[in-house]
């Protein structure tokens, strides 16, 4: 890859930092049927992505509308004893950083 291609090739262009098509940060999904509003996920989230909503006694967790998205640390997933939160994938990036190919999302396997 020469200087020209790193500077001008469309395939290797630098992603736009605030364009979600170029830099997409996963947003965790909360299953509201399983969530019991224990608040642990909102507490443990380092990126401050989760919040509680709803009436007292019936509170549930959700992703904040204003958040930039999560850092895929998966701590909320790992701490939820009800299995209400889906594991989040690594951020997806386009252009120069997008040359990544991998298989399915899998838990540890013993084979």
């Amino acid at each position, binding site marked *: 890859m020469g200087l020209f291609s*790193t*500077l001008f090739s469309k395939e290797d262009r*630098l*992603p736009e*930092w*605030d364009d979600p098509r*170029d*830099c997409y*940060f996963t947003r965790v999904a909360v299953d509201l049927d399983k969530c019991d509003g224990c608040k*642990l996920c909102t*507490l*443990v989230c*380092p*990126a*401050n992505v989760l919040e509680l909503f709803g009436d007292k006694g019936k509170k549930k967790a959700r992703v904040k509308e204003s958040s*930039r998205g999560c*850092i895929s*640390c*998966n*701590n909320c*997933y*790992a*701490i*939820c*004893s009800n299995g209400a939160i889906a*594991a989040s*994938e*690594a*951020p997806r*990036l386009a252009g*120069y*950083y997008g040359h990544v*190919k*991998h*298989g*399915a*999302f*899998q*838990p*540890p396997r*013993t*084979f």
Partner: protein
Amino acid sequence: MASTGVSALRVEDPETVEQEAGRASVIKEVPQGAPWTMVEEAIFRRRSIRKYKRKQVPEHLIRRILEAGRFAPSQGNCQPWKFLVIRDADMIQEMEDFCVEACKKLQRNLDYTQHPKGSFKRFTMRLLARVFNRLQPKMLHPVPVTAMTSIAQGRFAVFHKAPTVIVLLMNKRGIGTPEIDIGICGTNIVLAAQSLGLGTCWVGFSKFLGQNKQWRERLGVEEPYELVEAITVGYPIGDPTRLIARDTPQIAWFEGGRKQILY
């Protein structure tokens, strides 16, 4: 045959030697689908912990996890590491403040997204940011840039109010690629901590401390050592140990004269 001064390669079959010596070791093959070993448990259940209990970690446990670091493999056994242990909340707070301030400065001068689209300021800053991005494609990767912005805006912490911070120093004059050895050393520390019920998190933004003369002097970072990473240690909030899913990277498998692609 005339001696060349170079000793010939050993030609004995190692397994025969083992047997003749009467010391043949037994292969204990782990069956398919066997439960995780304790090491695997530590690897798979480790998360980067960023919320800690206030309780300080006992000194003996910190000493113990540093022992795991000390016994990491390194190139030519050069052991290019040195550790700093910081356990004063005030000092950790000062380190935090300094790194936040550094992020703020960097964000002000680099993050073009803070200006509205179409503005002249955004146009010039974006140009400059992209030149830096080309020169430093790993450091100015969009993910750390986003983290830096979040830190500058107070939405993300650096040392996470951890009771103990371990700073890893690297001997720049180590053999080959001492950066890799430091990585292996840190992994030993982190996994040993996990097996002892402690939570840890790698802190790359700690590098700012190593770039500042006052902090280098205060921490005693002297040539040939360089500050490369920090690891926060503490007792995690809750029990974040459920197994998670991860991406499966490609595996090119060469066997029987064939190449297979596995995931």
